[in-house]
């Protein structure tokens, strides 16, 4: 370090001082304050955070709110409701031709983990749980599509209903894919975005296929 060549410390000035750093007393106070607050406040705060993330999925803009404070409540609620709605759609009563609850649950979480690992291996800067959070929240348009399909199937199961269901599921599939790529593709090097988008496309395609081929008993 050439700039420090002329710095000298004279021998007779003792170097002294306090070595202990005062611990910031803010964090224990904060812990105690959130521990003492009424349960309603805690729940409302978490619900507001989840609700804000749902709004971000509905109107995908480049914001970091989804990424910064990730949580998995929303994905869990969406996954459970989708799996419950997809249950029991089988051709025969004896054999399980349709997806059961555990199958849908495992597909969604296993698929999300695989996509996250893939994006990390391709050099992504996003963390594991942030990616899971984004992928889980972007299942919301498909859950809405499932609800609409069930309502349409209540009316009848002909060609017209199939076309309606196809259009609705297709539109929601496109929305899901666009929303998740808006968040996830930014964290990749610019020339490799297509490599990350394709597994997301395949993941939402499989979920859309399960929704479209659902026929209630």
């Amino acid at each position, binding site marked *: 370090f050439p700039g420090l060549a002329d710095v000298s410390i004279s021998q007779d000035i003792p170097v002294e001082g306090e070595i202990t750093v005062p611990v910031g007393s803010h964090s224990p106070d904060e812990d105690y304050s959130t521990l003492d607050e009424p349960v309603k406040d805690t729940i409302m705060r978490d619900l507001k955070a989840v609700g804000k993330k749902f709004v971000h999925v509905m109107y995908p803009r480049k914001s970091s709110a989804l990424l910064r404070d990730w949580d998995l409540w929303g994905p869990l609620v969406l996954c459970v409701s989708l799996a419950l709605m997809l249950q029991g759609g089988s051709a025969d009563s004896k054999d399980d*031709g349709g*997806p*059961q609850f555990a199958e849908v649950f495992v597909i969604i979480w296993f698929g999300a983990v695989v996509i996250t690992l893939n994006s990390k*291996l391709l050099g992504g800067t996003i963390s594991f749980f942030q990616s899971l959070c984004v992928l889980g929240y972007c299942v919301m348009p498909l859950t809405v599509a499932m609800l609409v399909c069930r309502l349409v199937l209540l009316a009848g199961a002909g060609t017209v209903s199939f076309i309606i269901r196809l259009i609705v599921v297709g539109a929601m599939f496109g929305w899901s894919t666009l929303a998740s790529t808006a968040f996830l593709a930014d964290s990749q090097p610019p*020339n*490799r975005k297509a490599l990350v988008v394709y597994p997301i496309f395949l993941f939402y395609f499989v979920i859309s*296929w399960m929704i479209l081929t659902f026929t209630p008993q």
Partner: protein
Amino acid sequence: LSPQMWQVGKRQASRAFSLYANIDILRPYFDVEPVQVRARLLESMIPVKMINFPQKIAGELYGPLMLVFTLVAILLHGMKTSDTIIREGTLMGTAIGTCFGYWLGVSSFMYFLAYLCNAQITMVQMLSLLGYGLFGHCITLFVTYNIHFHSLFYVFWLVVGGLSTLRMVAVLVSRTVGHTQRLILCGTLAALHMLFLLYLHFAYHKVVEGILDTLEGPNMPPFQRVARDIPVVSNAVLNTTAKTIALTL
């Protein structure tokens, strides 16, 4: 109490670190560009001519992994349109098990054979070669699960399946010396690859009743509905062959 907690924390941290380290082992195999993937997909259908010089195989796992998942998706579509009934298990589990089992199992088996026959190929290269060979399977099944003509499937099986098999075989031959070894390796790979495509088509095949009824010759048994039984699959193959022979007579 606190030294115990420190021990637990340290153990968890080291476990998490080793998990991270395992992911980093795979990182170099995912270092590809989209143009490279597209080029390799197209190349997997073009057999090489120069078999006296060892051909280069890219040791990359992104393309093969995506192709296996695509094959799973196509297989699910085929199973659903053919109303396959799986007795013990689920549709998704069967599709994933079949595709991944083929890719990993046949790769390992071919690597073992290559080790016996002194072929110059590593495990990652074998996985990559076989994975890209599934591109032909994806195309064939995608077309023939939607358009149900047996003759169309046979044409696709020979042309598309044959091209991708020829490419894999040519690359393997270029890396092996000795006639017997070349024959063993290439024969096994060609047989397994083509038979897998045949199995995927006939095991989940839609019954096309109306067309076959009008075209069948005298005293032909009806086409059997296939539900994951091997004897029934061979029965179905014999049926179709007999029908096509009857048509030509």
